[in-house]
Each structure stands twice: as structure tokens, then as C-alpha cells.
């Protein structure tokens, strides 16, 4: 009998304690925000969408190799002697034309492994997180700055050079003057 009333009292009192807690919280200001209107300030180390600064990219492919999900694909063409590709911001001389630098951001797992090996710090993670698209294909970001025509030209130039080299090797002749120069990056 005693237990019976104890049960009732225990149930009743703990419910009251719980109700007191929730009642107090009625007057606690909300911790949520109204997202698209109010946005939180993101910390400086935020890891969101990848960005590549192509001016600094030397096409070394290290980021693509570090990527665990293979979302970066890079293709390069060697420059032919005499071409000036410019320098990166930390003084490295470029030697490769980057003809393809695609990041499939839909595959990206935001692990930041690609950022650390980059010798010129040209690939980094930004704090942009609103980049939803209607089509999956638009999530493949193309960072190459060369136009398709330029890419084609670089490729043929290099192939020509190779062919010439091979021909000269076969002929045993000294190398010819560099192929006609083309205006590099804009």
C-alpha cells in the first residue's frame, strides 16, 4: 500500500520537475536562426567547395593523386621550348599547359587531402556552401582557362614537336628552331 502511494507521488513529482524544465525553456531565447536570411559567420578553416586558382597551377597532378575518391582529373601537355607560361605567385616556373582540370564536386568528400600536397597552394577550400544545381553535370567544375581551340593548338604543337624530334632522331640532325609561338594565357 505504501509502495502504491509512493509510486503515485514519484510519478507525479518527476512529471512536475520535467514540466518545470520545459516551462523555463519557454523563455530561453532560441538557438536556431532563420537560415537564408541570417547566416552564421563561418570559421576561417571552413572546408567547403574547392577552388583552384589556375594562375598558380603548375599541373603537377599531386592533388589528383591524393584524392581518395578521384574527383579531380587533370590532363597536361608539355610546353614546347621557348613558350613562356609565366610564374606562379611563389616563384615556381610553369612548364606544363593544363588542358583539363575538372573537379567533380558531387564526388568530393571534403577531406582536404588535395590541399596539403599542392606546392603552390593553388587549390584550396572556400567557405561557399550554397551551390546546389539542377543537373548533376553542372557539378563538374571546369577550371581550365584555355579555350578549346587553344587546347587543340597546344596538343598539335606538342605532337608536331614530338614528331619533329622523332624525325630528327631518326635523321640524326640537330634540333630545329622552336615551333611558332602562340600567345599563352589571356
Amino acid at each position: 500500500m505504501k509502495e502504491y502511494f509512493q509510486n503515485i507521488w514519484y510519478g507525479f513529482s518527476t512529471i512536475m520537475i520535467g514540466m518545470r524544465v520545459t516551462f523555463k525553456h519557454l523563455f530561453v531565447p532560441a538557438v536556431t536562426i532563420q537560415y537564408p536570411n541570417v547566416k552564421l559567420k563561418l570559421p576561417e578553416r571552413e572546408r567547403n567547395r574547392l577552388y583552384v586558382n589556375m594562375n598558380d597551377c603548375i599541373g603537377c597532378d599531386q592533388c589528383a593523386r591524393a584524392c581518395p575518391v578521384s574527383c579531380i582529373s587533370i590532363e597536361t601537355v608539355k610546353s614546347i621550348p621557348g613558350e613562356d607560361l609565366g610564374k606562379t605567385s611563389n616563384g615556381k616556373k610553369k612548364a606544363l599547359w593544363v588542358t583539363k582540370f575538372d573537379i567533380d564536386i558531387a564526388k568530393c568528400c571534403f577531406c582536404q587531402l588535395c590541399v596539403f600536397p599542392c606546392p603552390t597552394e593553388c587549390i584550396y577550400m572556400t567557405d561557399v556552401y550554397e551551390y546546389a544545381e539542377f543537373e548533376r553535370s553542372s557539378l563538374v567544375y571546369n577550371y581550365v582557362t584555355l579555350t578549346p581551340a587553344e587546347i587543340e593548338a597546344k596538343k598539335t604543337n606538342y605532337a608536331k614537336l614530338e614528331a619533329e624530334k622523332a624525325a630528327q632522331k631518326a635523321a640524326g640532325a640537330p634540333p630545329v628552331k622552336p615551333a611558332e609561338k602562340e600567345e599563352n594565357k589571356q
Partner: protein
Amino acid sequence: MAIKTEEMVLNMGPQHPSTHGVLRLELILEGEIIQKVTPHIGYLHRCFEKHCEAMTYPQIIPYTDRMDYLAAMYNEFGYVIGVEKLLGIQVPERVEYIRVIMGELQRIASHLVAIGTYGADIGAMTPFLFAFRDREVILNLFEITCGARMLYNYIWVGGLSHDLHPDFVRLTREFITYFRPKIVEMNELLTTNRIFIERTANVGILPLETAINFGITGPMLRGSGFKWDLRKDDTYSVYNRFDFNIPIGEGKVGTVGDCWDRYYVRILEMGESLRLIEQALDQLPEGNVTSAIPKRIKPPVGSVYTRVENPRGELGYFIISNGTTSPFRVKVRGPSFVNLGIMDVLCKNHMVADVIAILGSVDIVLGEVDR
């Protein structure tokens, strides 16, 4: 004369509000009484172990994050300790301390999810949101440190990806002072609530014998009253330098090893983790966190088994190296997977509503069960 009745087969999941992901439970019911429970897993299988064979050692770390996504830091921790053992490298003191701090913060965050979702499973939505509100603070701490909120890739072989943020120590101390009263509040709101006790005490009793036979670890084993914590019993990193208790289930409101005990062990563990973090912050040495990271990770031929005390139990990594940059085999002994195996034993002769209570107290993460 007894009427001949048929047993009812009820599929719970893979889409169900409280199977914690995509677990499918096949319940055989006699009215509302459970006759048999068969968990069906594999709906979230992502070939983690096979993937590892094609990845280099650092590339595996983001994959370990995605196993137990509620305790990603701890998964990295265990894996990294294994690879370091293979390589035979010593990491700086500061790195060890930061790992412990992060691991314990992660433990609190993970237990908060466990407790919160347990409340939601039992039917109380408010503790769930309170738990997530507090977890958010921890995630913010992780975010300022490494930039990610859930899948960190923070603990690396030989070091850490970033040093602590300058504000980290101050914010963490603020969090500790903020969080202590919240545990009390959670106890008032949920733990001692009579209805909650009715629902969890004496439900799903797991005797110690059975727990050991099934290889149960973590809060589940401790809930059954066995003091077993790898942080103390097979100590790793710098855990032996701290003073902390291992809470065990005492059957305060029911029988030792019931759902309430498993739940309460988690509550107590959060308090212990807070103590650990405080001590680690006090002793935190200076140093360089990236100095010991090897340029090229190419362990010698050999194998290693390491185990750490994940928030859910013993997380073991068995790594075989064949001398190349990627492991020959990585086998994971996941606590959730092993703990899930006991569902049938625990649920027998309980009601449908108890299945939810028991499943919540087992605290599985499907990402790690299926890998």
C-alpha cells in the same frame, strides 16, 4: 480449447523512424509479444574494407570517418594508432593530448546523440533537441579546429592536420562550464522521469555472462556491471596520465544490465569525459603537431591489431601491410556490429514498443554496422 493463431511477421525498417538508419528488423509477433527478432543488415554497405586495399594509408582516413559517422574522430584515432605502430613512430606529446581532447569531445557528442535519440525513441522529443543543441557546440569546436563538422580527417598518421585554433582552449573551457548544468537538466527532464524509468528499467536485461559470450563491449558491457574500459585496461595514447572513473550499471531503478543502466552509463560517461578534457587542457604541452608526419607512409611488411574505446565499444583495426603504400588488408572490428548481434536475445518476450527501447539502448550506427 485454445484457438489456433498464426504468428505475424512484421518488417521494421529499413525505412522506419527509429531503426537509426537503414536497419531492417524482422519481427515475429504473437499479438504484441516478440517471438524472434532477426536483424537484416547491409543496406548501407560501402565496401570499406575492400576500398582500403586500393587506397594509400592517408587516403583511408576519410573513409574511416564515414564508418561510425557519429564518432568520426575516434575512428581516425584508432586507425592512426595502428598505422603508427606499424611504422614504429613516436608522435609529439601535444599531438597525443589534442587527440585525447578531441576523442573525448567526440565521445560526449556521440553520447548526446545516443541519449537524445533514445529520448525520441521513447517518445520525448524535447530531450532530443536539447541534446542536439549541445552537440552543436561541440561540432562548432571541431569546425574551428579543422573546418569540418562531422567527417573531420583531422587526426593524421604521425600528427594532426591543423594545430588547435587559438580560441579553442578558451571555448572548450566555456563549453565545459556550459555543459555541466545541462547534464543535470537532462537528468531532471528524462533520466529520473517516472515514465522513462517505467519504459526502460527491467527492459532488455542483459546478464553479464551473456554479454561476455556475445563479445559485447562499451557502455553496453559496462551497463551490465563489468568495469571494462580500454582506456584504462589496455591503455593507449596518454590516457594513463589522467584520473577518471569508469561508470558501471548498478541497477539503481531496476535490474543490473537493463536499458536504463545502459542509458545512465552514457550520462555518467559524459561527466567523466568532461573531467578528462579539463585535465588534458590543463596539461596541454606546447609543440609542433605536424613535425612527425612522415612524408611517405610505407610501413614495413607486418601486421598489427589495435583497439580503442570508441563511444560504442571496442573498435579494433587489424592492418596487414605488404610493404607498399597501401595496406594489404584492413579488417575492422566494429562495436555496433557486434553489439547488434544480441538483439534477438534481448527482445525475446518483450513487446513491440520495447524493441525500440532496446535498439535505442544498444546505440548502433548503421554506417559502422554495414561499413
